[in-house]
């Protein structure tokens, strides 16, 4: 299934959705399918600073443990408690209910990120 076109993507399978001063951040359907059933997610506390390309959390599934990498610089302003309480939310709806954190950023440089079309082409998603 094609990825939503209203956001940007990383090679490490995170997505961001621009929301004015802040971005919503999550992982892609492709990533979720590779992980299989998610059993645990460790997310930074509100106020924590994210640095582009650096690990900011971990996600565990029945089959694997993976690190989450920051697609943007900024400070965490909101954490999705729903996914901490029920990690399967990420499997069910990675793009809406399964978002991970909201990050307050300056102007986001999207030139290093991929569009949905670029991401889908790179990982043969259709």
């Amino acid at each position, binding site marked *: 299934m094609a990825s939503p076109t209203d956001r940007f993507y990383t090679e490490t399978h995170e997505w961001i959705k621009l929301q004015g001063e802040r971005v919503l951040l999550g*992982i892609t359907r492709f990533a979720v399918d590779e992980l299989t059933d998610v059993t645990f997610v460790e997310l930074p506390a509100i106020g924590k600073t994210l640095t582009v390309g650096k690990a900011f959390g971990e996600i565990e599934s029945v089959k694997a443990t993976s690190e989450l990498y920051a697609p943007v610089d900024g400070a965490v302003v909101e954490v999705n408690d729903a996914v901490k309480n029920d990690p399967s939310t990420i499997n069910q709806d990675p793009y809406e209910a399964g978002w991970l954190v909201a990050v307050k950023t300056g102007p986001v440089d999207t030139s290093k990120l991929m569009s949905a079309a670029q991401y889908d082409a790179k990982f043969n998603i259709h």
Partner: protein
Amino acid sequence: MTSYAKSLEMLFGGDIIFLTGVFLSHTLNLLKTPFHEFHVSQGAKMVGFAGWDMPLLYRGIIAEHQHTRKSASVFDVSHMGRVKFTGPDAVKFLNHLLTRNIAGAAVGQSLYSLVCNENGGVLDDVIVSRMEKYHLMVCNASNRLKLLAWFDRHRTGFDVQISDETLQTAMVALQGPKVIELLDAVLPKPVAGLKRYHCMMQRYMFIPFTVCRSGYTGEDGVEVICGNSAALMAIKFLLKSDGQGTESLVQPAGLGARDTLRLEAGMPLYGHELSETVDPISAGLNWAVAKDKDFIGSKALAGLVQHGTPQKLVGLLVDSPRTPRQDMTVLAGGKPVGRITSATASPTMGRTIAMAYVQSEFSEPGTAVEVDLRGTPLAATVTKLPFYKRAG
């Protein structure tokens, strides 16, 4: 998102390529079972495992796990090795190689056994069944070629024929509390009376197949072996037998659920709990080591039985929603005392469970230990295996 290479490679038998954080199975040169087309048609997520293109999951690992515990699942296990032994010295030869004494096995009886090297290290764990005209060994897919070479090396002086039938036959496991009832409604000979670890030959519409009351999930069920040409018909028949489509009583389940099910049932998996550097005594498999015969490795194992092993396989109840991975260190009083072999978020128990080798002095049930999860200590308690035992 980037996966940790080690646990995944161990999990999928090293058939994973890492590519900018994504793992992809080799699609070239993988063997396909007779059910391959069926898996693809069911939307299975396929993965390279021990040289075979196998279904990791269909709908989801946890859903398939839970369905097996309450109903009936069908697993394609055709990747496992199937080797026939015939000839006047077949029993003598097998008894030279196996830790169990198969000389006393009745026709139709199956024995779980180890194949060990001279040091008592485990080359594989297998099930050997005595059929009327031959002995059949089922071995791990990852060890099939290694075992065939091992048999070849040791056959001198034995009048035995060894025939690898893996590629000409198919094998499915039907597992779950409703399996026997379901089979008895359709099969010519009832399996309800078939004892655990026993086999029978059956025929359905002129097609012969072998049914064994065994499995790798902790549930009741059978493992069925038939010729390649009959395989696809059989699985379609099974899934349609109650005419319910996607709500069918029998659902396909993949390797992912097979792994979490066997872990709850406390069953060892080669490459995790068993290896050439681990002996069956440490692994808690003393019951599968004969004391009344000589076999390759028997001297080394007798010594271990007499003097005890420095480490033992135990279960761990982990007090954390986090899942340890293979080879993470087990600590007691801040000092390393063992290593994790397998772990999962148990769907049945709703908590994290693990198996680990620990120094024998820390192997008593109730012993408090910690698992070092990359610097984060997780509290855990040693417990008896299995974690899960079916009722009845």
